Every structure is written in structure tokens, then in C-alpha cells.
């Protein structure tokens, strides 16, 4: 029997599901499973019993809770696909809207983090799901394998006063460059899970934390980290960092 799979979106940009659609493995995935619900590409709009549910997007409206619970009741396993579903995501920046992780209202069996999740990670996860295995994520942070770190310790004591390198600093960036924190530029690598091949860092841009932390709670990780480093007043007050991909959990 083929596994029945459901793919649903809550409040999202559709970037996660479009990543799934464009991953190398998707055609093979489609053949090996039975897609039971995926409104993006299919007219089928009833939620039925299934083996695996992948959910993209955050909860921003009460009406989504019912849908989510319905899915949970019908699915043997539920996974959060992407950072919106896993942590709340970009809508956390809103002061007016709620942005809940799906785990706020239903139990989940795992996450595939990232905004969007790296294609390699999606590929690996889809294969493991077809084989009915658990998703495996690295338990290390981004710094542990960062090309800018070498054997050095992370310079937590340096004053940090910039969000991004200025454009002339960018052009001189190369593999011999220092850790961003060394240069006074905020990098969330220390509290971010590895798994993206350092794609931002390789372009000369610090990590904004899109894969989320290794241990569960995004906000407490961020509070600890920001209090550990020597962050300028301007950046301490800047909400764009603190609420970038998650905010403290609220009740529904």
C-alpha cells in the first residue's frame, strides 16, 4: 500500500510548498505515494485519513485551528514544513496579527525548518518519509561548521552594532574573512541549526536565523544570545531581529 500524504497551507507565502514541488525528488515522490490532498495542484478538497501530513504556514486566524485539528485527527503523523509552521515565521514581525506555530495547537511529529527549507533538506526528508522513517536534523549550530570560524572561539565580547556589512565591506569579503561577530555585525549562527550549507554566509551576509534553534524555543534562545553579546543600543531596540521568525507563545 502506498502511503497517503496530505500537503496543506495555512498563512504562508507558498515558498515551502513550491520548494517541495521543485525538488529533484518530487516526481519520484509523487509516484511512490498517494497524494490525498494538496489544493495547490489538485481539485480534491476533502480531508481524509492519511499517513503523513505536511503543513506549511503559521496560524494567524482562529478558523485555521479547526482545519489543523481535523488534519491531526486524520493523519498518523504531522510535520511542520518550514519556519512559519515550525516557529510562526515572518508574520511574527506583525504587531497586529497572531502568528502561531502549528505546535501551539496540535501535537506534531517533527519539523522541516527553514525559510524556505533548503532543497537538500527537503529531499532527504521526503525520502525518509517515503521509507516511513523519522526525519533527522543536525543537532549542531551553524557556527560548528562555519567556514568563517576556523578553530577560533566565537567572539561574544566584541561590540556588535550592525545588521549587515556595508556594500564596500561586501566586495572585499572572501574565505579569509573573519566571523561576522568579530567585525561587529550581528550573526545568529550561534543559535541557529546547521543544515543550510551556510548559504547566506557564503554570499557575505550574516545568518538571520531562518532555520531556527536546535532546541525548541526560538525566543528564549534569542533572549539568551542577545544578552550574551555586546549589542549596541540601537540594535537592542530593533524589533526586526527579535521577532523575525517567532514570538513568545500566545494562547489560542
Amino acid at each position, binding site marked *: 500500500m502506498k502511503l497517503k500524504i496530505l500537503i496543506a497551507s495555512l498563512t504562508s507565502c507558498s515558498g515551502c510548498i513550491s520548494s517541495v514541488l521543485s525538488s529533484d525528488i518530487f516526481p519520484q515522490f509523487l509516484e511512490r505515494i498517494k497524494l490525498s490532498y494538496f489544493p495547490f495542484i489538485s481539485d480534491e478538497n476533502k480531508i481524509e485519513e492519511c499517513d503523513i501530513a505536511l503543513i506549511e504556514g503559521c496560524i494567524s486566524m482562529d478558523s485555521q485551528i479547526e482545519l489543523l485539528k481535523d488534519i491531526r485527527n486524520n493523519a498518523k503523523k504531522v510535520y511542520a514544513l518550514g519556519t512559519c509552521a515550525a516557529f510562526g515565521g515572518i508574520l511574527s514581525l506583525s504587531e497586529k496579527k497572531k502568528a502561531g506555530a502549528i505546535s501551539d495547537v496540535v501535537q506534531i511529529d517533527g519539523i522541516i525548518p527553514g525559510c*524556505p527549507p533548503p532543497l537538500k533538506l527537503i529531499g532527504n526528508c521526503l525520502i525518509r518519509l517515503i521509507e516511513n522513517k523519522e526525519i533527522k536534523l543536525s543537532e549542531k549550530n551553524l557556527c560548528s561548521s562555519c567556514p568563517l570560524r576556523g578553530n577560533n572561539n566565537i567572539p561574544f565580547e566584541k561590540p556588535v552594532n550592525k*545588521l549587515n556589512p556595508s556594500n564596500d565591506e561586501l566586495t572585499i569579503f572572501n574565505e579569509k574573512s573573519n566571523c561576522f561577530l568579530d567585525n561587529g555585525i550581528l550573526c545568529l549562527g550561534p543559535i541557529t541549526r546547521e543544515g543550510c550549507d551556510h548559504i547566506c554566509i557564503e554570499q557575505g551576509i550574516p545568518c538571520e536565523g531562518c532555520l531556527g534553534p536546535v532546541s525548541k524555543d526560538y525566543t528564549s534562545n534569542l533572549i539568551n544570545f542577545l544578552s550574551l553579546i555586546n549589542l549596541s543600543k540601537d540594535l537592542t531596540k530593533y524589533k526586526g531581529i527579535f521577532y523575525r521568525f517567532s514570538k513568545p507563545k500566545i494562547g489560542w
Partner: protein
Amino acid sequence: MIQKVIDVCTRVEGHGNVKIYIQNDEISNVEFEILAFRGFENILIGKKLSDVPKIVSRICGLCHASQTIVSCKSIEEMYNIKVNQQSVLVRRLLMAGELLKSHSMHYFFQSFPDLLNIFKIYTKPIDIYDLIKYNPQLTSHIYEIIKIGNDIDKLFGGRSIHAITPIPGGVIYRPSRNRIIIVEKYFLRVLSNLEWIIKNFIDLFSKFNPPEDFVIPNVNFLSLSNNKSYDRYDGILTIKKGLAEYQDFRLEEYIDYFDKDPTIRGIDFTDKNHNYLVGPISRNQVVESYGSDEISGYLSLFDEKWRNNILYASFLNLIEMYVESQNSLKILEDPILKSTIPLPNLKSIISREGIGVVEAPRGSLIHHYRINKRNVLKEAKLFIATEINIALINNMISNYARKLYEKKDLNKVKKEIQKIIRAFDPCISCATH
């Protein structure tokens, strides 16, 4: 009494409903309704300029490059910076990659099954498994284009969705011969696939007259045009009214045409009698040349009946992918891509506000920002293609629904009007920004 019937749209990007209002056993009105409203215009308030492009990218996973790039353009206007030619070329490549993916997904998953059904070539319900088996060659050609579009944006954007490299001032870019060779092969491959797909479209559909219910009523076509040529990055916004009346759209004075209250969803048009249309059809109407001989041959196979029909947008999707692949091949030959050119530093702000425009795959996309004394955003207005088209969508689906309901079969109404909606290729993520 007015009865309201709600139906969920399927095979559209995001969550949309149609609301059908029935009064005295007749359909009075139909609205295409978009539920979640995220409020990005509110999110942007208080954000630093360097942070804004990265945030707006998350409005949409399909036109993320356009969102990021129009944001950079708006900010560059404030700094009065002229982006170097290399960055412009890379931005164009990113937008081409995005278009390949967005248009090919829309064509295959949304338009193609509807076209088969509308022209009675395949009348049974078609599910995703029927679709991929329908013509395996089409499936594999399309699939390859989706992946190539994705890869191109990964190669030039650092990430295939929510690109990292476009920043205010240009694009982070290090020349690499290897990358150029790979991407050249990609575009050649896309062109050869597209030749097949375009021919397939012509063989299947060109002999038919498109249905009248899908005819676009009298509208204002709005699109960028660069000296009357096709260009999605640079140019002047132009309105075409009726058959041949062209007007420049004064971007700086857009409130003469439409405006919005950024705290609520939707656009208000000054001229309530004329709807606007943006997207491939408007580009086709406004622009006089795609700059490609092959294209003129293909286009000549379709007459005026097609040109004024919303179903033509799906053919234009294929045409635009073809044009942009040809243009991209020219870009890849440009020696400027081989040199290392530093990006200008963002020094002092010259203007407290900036307006930018690009043509996203689904049509004209305008961002307008104002900053406060601390140089963080105090107001943002985003005019997004799907939002601009909604008035016209509602007009067309209402007319069609009224006519269909003469037979009193509500299920048929629900099913059929969705075909019009899908033909517009609405992007609900964008529209719920």
C-alpha cells in the same frame, strides 16, 4: 432575501473563496474573496532600509525575486543611486529564473487541465495523476523548466526562493565562468523544451475559437514598456485604453489613478468605470515588440479573438518564458558579467521617499516607502498585481455566473467560474500581503 453561497477555490496559489450572492433565484453578484490578510505594510513600519528587501521577499514564494528587486529599486531612489550594469544584468537573470518557475507551474497545474476541459479534449475530471500521465513528454519538459528556474535563482540568488544576493545598491556577485556555462546550457534546454510545448499548445488549441465568456471587457491595460519593447525590469509604466490610445502612467502621481489605505486590504481606483488589468495580456497589449523573430511567427497564429481572451494568458506564459530565455542567453554573453565591479556604498539619503516598479510574473508591482528622521520606514504602500486585477476578475465571474445560473445548476456555476479565476493566475499570497 439575499442568500450567500461560499465555495473554496482549488488549484490556485493560496486560499481563496468565491462568494455567490443569490437574490430572487438569480445570481446578483459574485466575489472572489481572499481570506488571510497579513499586513506587510504594517510589518514594514519601523524597519531599517537594509532589512526591507529581505522581509518583503516573504510576501510571496513565487514572485519573491520581483518583490526583493522592486524593494531595492525603491530604496535606491531614496539614495539616488544608479545601480551598475552588472547588477542590472544579474537582477534580470533572477527575474527570468523566477518567471520560468512561476509561469511553468501555472501553465501545467492550473491552465492546461482547464484548457483541455474547456475545449472538450478531455472531459472527465482530471486529477494530478491523470495530468502527469496525460502527455508524459509535456510533463517531463515542464518539470525540467520548473527545476531549471529554481536552479538559476539558486545560482544567482544564493537561495532559490527568498534570494540573498539582491541588496540596495546592486547584487552581490562574484564572476564564475563555470556558473555561466551551466546556466547557458539551462536556457538552451528551456528553449528547446519550450519549442515543443508551444507547438503542442498550437496543435491542441489554436484551431478553436476561445469561449466568449472569457473575453476581457473594456479595460485599461497597464504594463511597463521600454521604448515600446518588452522589459520587466526597466521602462515606463504605460496604460493602453481601448484599441490604440496609449498614455504614460505617472508613477510619482499614482494616486491620480489608484490608492490604498495600508491598514486595510484592497486598492481604490479613481476611475470606477474602468477596471485595470495587469499581467501577460497587458504586456502583450502595451508592448509593441518582444524583440524576437520566432515569437512573431508564433503570435501570428492567434487572431484578435484570442488576443482579447483571458485564456490567451496561458499561451503568453509560454511566449514570455521563451523571450526571457533568449534574452538571458544574450546577457550571459555580456563581458560585464565577467568583471569584478564593486557596489556603490549607501551614503546619504537624498529623498525621504522612494517609489519603484517592476513587472512581476503576474503584472506590475509597485512599492512606495516613506522614512522618518531616524531613516526607518514610517509608511509603506505595496500595489500588487493580483490586487489590481481583482475588480476585473469579479466583473467577469459575476457576468459568467449570472448567465450560467439560468440553468439553475449551482454546482456548475461554482466549477466554471473558477476557470476564469485560474486563467488570471491570481497569487493569493501576494494579494494577502
